[in-house]
């Protein structure tokens, strides 16, 4: 019998290894798997490569992971924010490597990995410094840049509901990177607000079919990252 639900969040992330490439869903705080990230922080894996849209705010979520020295390299589109204190500091002293990728190229590279497309051409970034060193080719008289699929060992994703087959629905704009990261990682680990019975999710409204999901874990009341940041909370490894 298929049952992807894991009893505890600690068990869900227990086997993530040092040196792993880990995708984190979320755009800003919406859809950011803060609870899974904190579990990974406690689990202790080091030398991680993180793929995420942002580099975190305050001292929680991915910022806490960076602050604990666990992240060697980050691939993202917009690391900077008014509260990205940790990333800014690590970056300034060369303690973290950054691969800056336009947001749409990031999304398409992730989707490509999930879809078995090793590389594709995009007009985005042609003629800009972000295309430096990349293959450029004209299609329809316009330059396009060759971009490669971006895969991961693990994706940590936040969704709304799951059934035991791993079918997922999301909530509003928190959907963002979740569906494509589930496709692009060898193992996707998904925190959901609730599990429902098999057949309780209308087959027409499944956003991520279970085939893309490795593990699910219930986090009924996910951390409110914005509130934590506003309160000045610093998440340290336990």
């Amino acid at each position, binding site marked *: 019998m298929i049952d992807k639900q894991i009893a505890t969040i600690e068990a869900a992330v227990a086997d993530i290894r040092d040196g792993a490439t880990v995708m984190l869903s979320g755009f800003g705080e919406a859809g950011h798997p803060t609870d899974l990230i904190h579990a990974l922080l406690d689990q202790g894996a080091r030398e991680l490569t993180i793929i995420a849209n942002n580099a975190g705010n305050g001292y929680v979520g991915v910022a806490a992971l960076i602050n604990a020295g666990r992240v060697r390299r980050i691939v993202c589109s917009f690391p900077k924010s008014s509260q990205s204190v940790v990333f800014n500091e690590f970056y300034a002293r060369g303690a973290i490597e950054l691969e800056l990728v336009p947001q749409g190229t990031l999304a398409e590279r992730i989707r490509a990995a999930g879809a*078995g497309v090793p590389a594709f051409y995009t007009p985005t970034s042609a003629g800009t410094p972000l295309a430096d060193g990349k293959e450029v080719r004209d299609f329809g008289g316009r330059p396009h840049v060759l971009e490669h699929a971006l895969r991961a060992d693990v994706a940590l994703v936040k969704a709304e509901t799951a059934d035991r087959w791993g079918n997922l629905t999301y909530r509003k704009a928190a959907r963002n990177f979740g569906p494509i990261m589930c496709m692009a990682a060898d193992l996707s680990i998904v925190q959901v607000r609730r599990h429902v019975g098999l057949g309780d999710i209308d087959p027409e409204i499944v956003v991520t079919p279970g085939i893309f999901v490795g593990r699910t874990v219930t986090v009924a009341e996910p951390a409110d990252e914005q509130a934590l940041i506003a309160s000045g909370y610093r998440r340290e490894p336990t």
Partner: protein
Amino acid sequence: MTDNATGQGHNSVRRTPDEIAARIAQDIPDGFYVNLGIGQPEKVANHVPSEREVVLHSENGILGFGPTPADADIDHDLINAGKKPVTLKDGGSFFHHADSFAMIRGGHIDLCVLGAYQVAENGDLANWSTGKTDDVPGVGGAMDLAAGAKRIFVMMTHTTKDGAPKLVDRLTYPATARGVVKRVYTDLAVLDVVDGGFQLVEAVEGLSLEDLRARTGATIHTP
């Protein structure tokens, strides 16, 4: 069905398509995502042990389809890749064609069982065209499945109706994909594709290795 498999006086038990399908089903673990090719491979679904939950994928955009419905329940919007009516199990889902082939090409389908005209000892598969130029060609999802699924099992007769071997040293039919077949299930034997040829897993009762080799156009290694 008992048959004279060799045509040379030896009595061996040739497997029926349902028996081949049942044999394949034994090798499918609980929890696998499986695509069954159109035709004979579809029979595999009927033989999956009831204690195993196997999720069937259909490339037209279904995960988790179930058996043929009763006539009264046929829904023309709920068909499989063979365009036959199916049902949907609890936990099933619908998605569009690009997403469906992302599952295939992206390596998310654990196993695909396909029919074949020929399988070569290097794992090359021919199952989409006989190469006759006057035929109307058609490829469908065969090349995507062959190139994309994590494992390709082939289900076929060991020889053509005319007795020509379908396991060959080199394809003579146009390729569907190169080096992709992992295991072949025929009416006479089960063989793995290994470096340097086919490796015999099992032959049907009463069939000697010599007889099998006589009906095979490629090297057969034994364990």
